[in-house]
């Protein structure tokens, strides 16, 4: 492995380690919850980067696969005694099966990956705007199915009863693995050819790269990670409805990725940290403003508007995001060697 890549890995995994250590030092449950949510976001955003970053195609469907993972794990882990209440119409075969949350999280990822493998291949032949629009259409389809497949999802109503299993160390460990996988995938044969096709599709095809197949592999990997992230999130909040897997959440994770820089894993990680912490700060500000009674009405929506403005600002100033082309490791090494005398 090149020294630059090792440095990248050390820095990014160091950030994840900090995420586990800081709440322990502070000793606050609230901080721990924030850190856990941030770690879940890391899994989702880095998972999205494996497809979008390498292929150059913005995928709106990612949150849909998160939802599939969350529901798949829910169906398999809600205690059998509670199933009658939570999912009264669940099919007989499934109603009797109960697995531990850890197995549920793995299976959640697997189900999302299988669905992606089954539906996505034809979409992978599309590029540019048509590809983005169809990924959006796929999100709509997944959302609509989640909302109406009452037997499995409890319809648009809240599904409750998931065992609480998502801890900060577990989530951070999975986030760390996902970061390693994303960096390895980027440097892999498929990753390199996919990045070539991202930069110039015609030239890559002229060299012999079969682009739809390359994209398909990345899409399945990305859905697998999204499914795991969704299941983790499900066992964190323990109750949710399909609304949790739609536009607002899509905008947040896309915002994190695009602001950080979608071409790099560093961008995905840094973007997630920045936006998540910015959100917490703004939420605290909103609460403080409302508590102080400085305004006649309640202050709402500051977080969303600031994210939208931040996205616009970054797109104007740095269209590729904060880390547009190079991971943080090689970036630091390059600066270091440039300063050294020749």
């Amino acid at each position, binding site marked *: 492995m090149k020294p630059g890549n090792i440095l990248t890995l050390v820095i990014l995994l160091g950030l994840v380690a900090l995420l586990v250590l800081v709440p322990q030092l502070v000793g606050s449950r609230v901080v721990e919850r924030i850190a856990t949510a941030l770690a879940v976001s890391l899994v989702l955003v880095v998972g999205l980067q494996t497809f979008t970053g390498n292929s150059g195609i913005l995928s709106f469907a990612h949150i849909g696969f998160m939802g599939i993972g969350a529901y798949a794990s829910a169906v398999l882990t809600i205690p059998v005694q509670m199933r009658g209440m939570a999912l009264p119409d669940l099919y007989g075969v499934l109603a009797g099966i109960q697995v531990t949350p850890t197995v549920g999280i793995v299976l959640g990822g697997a189900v999302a990956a299988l669905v992606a493998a089954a539906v996505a291949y034809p979409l992978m032949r599309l590029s540019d705007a048509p590809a983005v629009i169809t990924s959006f259409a796929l999100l709509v389809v997944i959302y609509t199915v989640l909302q109406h497949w009452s037997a499995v999802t409890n319809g648009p109503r809240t599904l409750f009863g998931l065992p609480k299993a998502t801890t900060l160390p577990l989530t951070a460990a999975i986030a760390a693995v996902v970061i390693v996988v994303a960096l390895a995938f980027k440097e892999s044969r498929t990753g390199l050819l996919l*990045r070539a096709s991202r930069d110039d599709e015609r030239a890559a*095809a002229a060299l012999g790269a079969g682009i739809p197949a390359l994209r398909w592999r990345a899409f399945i990997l990305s859905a697998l990670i999204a499914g795991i992230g969704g299941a983790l999130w499900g066992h964190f909040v323990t109750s949710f409805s399909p609304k949790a897997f739609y536009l607002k959440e899509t905008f947040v994770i896309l915002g994190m990725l695009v602001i950080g820089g979608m071409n790099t894993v560093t961008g995905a990680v840094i973007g997630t940290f920045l936006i998540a912490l910015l959100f917490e700060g703004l939420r605290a500000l909103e609460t403080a403003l409302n508590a102080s009674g400085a305004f006649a009405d309640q202050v709402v929506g500051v977080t969303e508007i600031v994210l939208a403005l931040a996205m616009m600002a970054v797109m104007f100033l740095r269209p590729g995001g904060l880390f547009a082309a190079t991971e943080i490791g090689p970036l630091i090494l390059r600066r270091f060697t440039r300063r050294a005398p020749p």
Partner: protein
Amino acid sequence: MSDGRLCARDVRVEFSGLRALDGVTLELARGEIVGLIGPNGSGKTTLVNAITRQVPLAGGEVSVDGASLSGLRPHEVARRGIARSFQIVRLFDHLTVAENVEAAALAQGLGRRAAQGRVAALLAEFGLARQAETLAAALSYGDKRRVEIARALAAEPSFLILDEPAAGMNEGESEVLLSLLSRLPAERKLGLLIIDHDMPLIMRLCHRLHVLASGRTIAEGDVKSVRRNPAVIEAYLGSSAEARHA
């Protein structure tokens, strides 16, 4: 495979009813250098795109060693041993020079280690070793052109098609390119098809010429006879050019 041939037979291409190529037949054998020339808009690049199947054929056939390329997609054509460069440089801008060249070897199905070996050899040969870790976007124009040729060669093609490789190069750079290209067919046992407007370069480099005008072949043959062909002089070279090269 030394008698391998790339054949484009009676190729026709239409763009929404407009005939861009009207029955062009061109052959390229391994080991030879053929120049494809003609005025702007005569259909040179279209012929290359038709051979690599980046535009659909309205008629005719392209084959390699007698096997038809009909129905193949561009990446499948590439795996039959045809590599090309583009009129406008098309490098992978966010990839390093080494990664650009490696991508070509990997796309042909080569393993990681073998690909990296091939990359190192090509970068050394093309004097690009020091820029191996530079992002392609940061290169000078001349270097970009060289990376593009190195990248095409990393696929170890049987047939290499270069679309204006000397465009934008100064005289010194052209000269280096000329000596490099002239060695390729013998060293790598490949057939080289070159489009360029740099007539002195084409005349010195090519064994045969193929001249297009308005989507049709107006002349083909060895350099001398084409240069004297009245139709060519009329359509392309012009009498002053003929005087200069005579």
